[in-house]
């Protein structure tokens, strides 16, 4: 497809500097997936409801379908690919697997990034179930019923973070 308004951007993605020229209308989720081939970030509803595309932008969670890639210029974007070290899962990922906090896995990347933000904001203190449920209210999961996800989050947040 021809570009209508090509824009050069420079940002960091998972610690790596990235430069690209992209059409202004391309959202951050599609930039990550199609241009950088970071397909861990999933696209569900494309209008900000489901939370599957949640990434961290300068440490703050954001719906990457509601942000243009050009708006990430100069910023640091963290995606789910930043978590595991090769085949060694991040303790948060291990906890989700252990507690059956995922089934189909579609919402999981967004859930992980939401919980990563929560873990940084609450580091060093006890986190309540209500806080976890409030944080996860922005991530729709149609498989698990959230019980395992909440158990996993509490175990991780109160033991590792």
């Amino acid at each position, binding site marked *: 497809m021809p570009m209508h308004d090509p824009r050069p951007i420079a940002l960091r993605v998972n610690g790596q500097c990235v430069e690209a020229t992209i059409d202004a209308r391309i*959202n951050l989720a599609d930039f990550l997936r199609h241009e950088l081939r970071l397909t861990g970030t999933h696209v569900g509803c494309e209008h900000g409801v489901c939370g599957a595309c949640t990434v961290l*932008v300068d440490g*703050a*969670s954001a719906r990457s379908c509601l*942000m*243009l890639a050009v708006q990430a210029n100069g910023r640091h974007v963290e995606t789910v690919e930043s978590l595991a070290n090769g085949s060694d899962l991040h303790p948060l990922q291990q906890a989700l697997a252990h507690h059956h906090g995922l089934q189909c896995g579609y919402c999981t990347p967004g859930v992980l990034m*939401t919980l990563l933000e929560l873990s940084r904001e609450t580091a060093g203190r006890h986190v309540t179930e209500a806080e976890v449920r409030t944080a996860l209210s922005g991530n729709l999961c149609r498989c698990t019923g959230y019980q395992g996800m909440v158990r996993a989050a509490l175990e991780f947040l109160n033991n590792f973070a």
Partner: protein
Amino acid sequence: MKAPPFRYHRPSSIAEAVELLATLDNARAIAGGQSLMPMMNLRLVAPDHLIDLGEIEELVGVTESEDTLSIGAMTTQRTLERSERVARDCPLITAAIRHVGHQQTRNRGTIGGSLCHLDPGAELPVAAAALDAVLIAIGRSGERRIPFAEFSVGLLSNALSPDELLARIELPKAAPRTGTAFVEFNRRPADFAVVSVAASLTLDAKGRVAHAAIAVGGSFEAPVRLRAFESAGVGQRPEAALFDLAAREAEAIKCVGDDVYPTEYRQELAGVLVRRALDSALADVESHADA
């Protein structure tokens, strides 16, 4: 779906943004994008030019004078949610923001964006209505102060001229002996409100109502103030009989229902939530009195 094509502009000053708004056809300003991006992705709107206000530093931040807080339009909801100054001087805003979207949207969503978008289900316009917020618009011909009561001109439509942008919002600091409450009903927490109520109640030294401001939102084109109750209540004791007057006024506001929430349901809900909000605002005044 994806947003249709547009030309992207990233002004770094209010003056530059105003010039773009004034000279470009079919241009839209984008604040946090938490409403406009979905509307573009769903192809409900298709601007030819998108003017991103995200790099204009003079639109961000909270300043105060003796009796008002002045909030830059591009200040994020998350910043306001965490602001101790806002919690102290304008607690109704803090209470309302707890109901606004999710953290993932509050991190980018702004107070100015929400007020300009005027979604009937949004919370910040209801709080702004109850607080008699003054909106400061800047256009080619300079600054204009718009009382919130004059800001809505129809569904999802604000009173800004095509060359104007909302620069900041002035909110009065809560007077002594003031209690506030924000209550809403929806089926899932953080969803848009079916009905929401913002209440501010100030008592005099004898414990009678000195000032009351109640705004009801959610089921109406724009927030509605309970003016009859507000004027009748002054000098009265804040008790159930008086609050019933407010509830009856709320139940009489015309609205259009649907299959899920019929008109009668919404109207009864408005009455119930107004009573709850007033009870809660009164308890809030009393909790300050104890302190």
